[in-house]
């Protein structure tokens, strides 16, 4: 682990009170504690915004796993943020079916109009992180864009200004 002791003292544990109760309910669904890892990480990300090394250590502790094991799982899945992201995390599908329907132009418009600039980077005002993702499973509604948990279908470059205005 990379955190220092003083850092650890500042750390506010995620799994206390109501969140801990929520975790207890999750554990009831599985015969092993380990199986609750993905849902536990989802809760951690919802509470903290991203999955830091310290949170991985806490998750490991509550589930009886090692921090290294948890990190191995976190890094396998693309939806757990290993770094802080902007207030609006935007996923744009650019796989073939969306690609031939103009997905790259949608991505470009989002990068320009939010000020994020580069795919994966966060805009200077901290409001936007735009990422290019593989198939979102809505190919008949090209181009699908996921803004946080809002799944927006049939996005074209013309619709980008409205999206930026809505979530800014």
């Amino acid at each position: 682990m990379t955190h220092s002791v003083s850092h650890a003292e500042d750390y506010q544990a995620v799994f206390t009170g109501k969140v801990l109760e929520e975790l207890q309910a999750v554990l009831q669904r599985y015969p092993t504690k380990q199986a609750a890892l993905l849902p536990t990480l989802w809760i951690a990300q919802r509470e903290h915004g991203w999955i830091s090394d310290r949170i991985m250590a806490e998750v490991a502790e509550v589930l009886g796993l090692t921090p290294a094991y948890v990190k191995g799982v976190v890094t396998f899945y693309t939806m757990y943020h290993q770094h802080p992201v902007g207030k609006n995390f935007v996923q744009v599908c650019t796989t073939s079916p969306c690609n031939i329907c103009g997905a790259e132009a949608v991505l470009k418009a989002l990068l320009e109009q939010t000020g994020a600039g580069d795919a994966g980077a966060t805009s200077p005002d901290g409001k936007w992180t735009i990422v290019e993702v593989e198939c979102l499973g809505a190919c008949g509604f090209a181009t699908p864009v996921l803004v946080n948990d809002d799944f927006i279908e049939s996005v074209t470059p013309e619709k980008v200004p409205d999206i930026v205005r809505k979530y800014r």
Partner: protein
Amino acid sequence: MGFPHKPHPKETVVLSQYFGDAEARTHKGWVKRGGYEALSQVLKMEPAAVTDIVKESGLRGRGGAGFPTGLKWSFMPKDKKRPHYLCVNADESEPGTFKDREIMRWTPHALLEGTAIAAHAIRAEVAYIYIRGEFTEPWTIMEQALADANAAGVFGKIKVYLHRGAGAYICGEETALMNSIEGKRGNPRIKPPFPAAAGLFGMPTTINNVETLAAVPHIIKRGAAWYKGLCLSNPKSTGTKLFSVCGHVQRPGNYEVTMGFPLKDLIYDMCGGPPAGRTLKACIPGGSSVPILTREETEACLLDYEGVVEKGSMLGSGGVIVFDDSADMVYQIMRLTKFYAHESCAQCTQCREGTAWTTKILERLLGGQGKTNDLDLLLDLAENMTGKTICVLSDSCAAPVVSGIKKFRGEFDAYLAGKRQPVMVG
């Protein structure tokens, strides 16, 4: 029906009857439409009798492999000594496929009913529905439907839980899906042992696709003979199938047709064909993992498991990707291999290296830096990526490369000869 479009007269509407009907999402609305009648009937039956009906119907797995569903259920141990599990594969991530999403959005109770019926048939106490992490809306709808179904007590002793994926195409592979539920990295497992012997938590397990299970209540209610009778061509392919059509067509969407339906009619009559002034160039009929068909093959293809194989591809998940004459096949094939390179779990060398190098070579070719033997190199790589790994992700990456070079070689040669404007990618 061709959601989000009006139903087409040539469709055979069974699974998609209530797409677009928000009331059907509610427990009350579903019961009003005859929902959960099949389940209450099944809960009074012997599990083996349920399996026999499904076997007799000819239903085959709709996730891509087309394995007979009843036969799969019958592989579960007869003498029950350990817990049995059912996993529902709702990790729909195959490029071109978006049918399970619509089933969950509009008819969540159809899936829950089919899930409970299957759990009863295989004598599973617990069923996990694995929904991909990006499906936020279907998740919310399924969560509500599950809460309502539980409140109504429709499942008897069977427990149904939702499990959210976290962004990994490979978790749609059944053994990777089980690892993911167990809280592990989604690496596929070596088979054997098969899931019916040692699956989730090492216990006997069956994994079924969403569309497969959504068809089961209809089979129970209307009978195996009715389902078997839904067949336009080969008797080994029965029932209806949802085809997700996307890419260069005027009306993309989900269309439900009887097995054996002509692909040509699906693309031209139902979807309106390519945009005005454009002509059909190629089609991937079963999700991005299957070989590409030329226009001639597409127009002569019948949509059932055998019919598509006869034309040199596979029915797969029923995700139909249409390319018109404006599509750059070299670029699109690179975009597909890039998908597989991104999604490789990296445990097998052939796949980890093969998907990445295939993509790099295609990018170099597109950038005007191709070498004369690059096509041979790509085919050699594809050969080494086929049938040599734990799962078929690697094979899936090779399929569009091999069929693409074979059928659209002129486009590859044009880049090699500097006759096409280089495209900067990477």
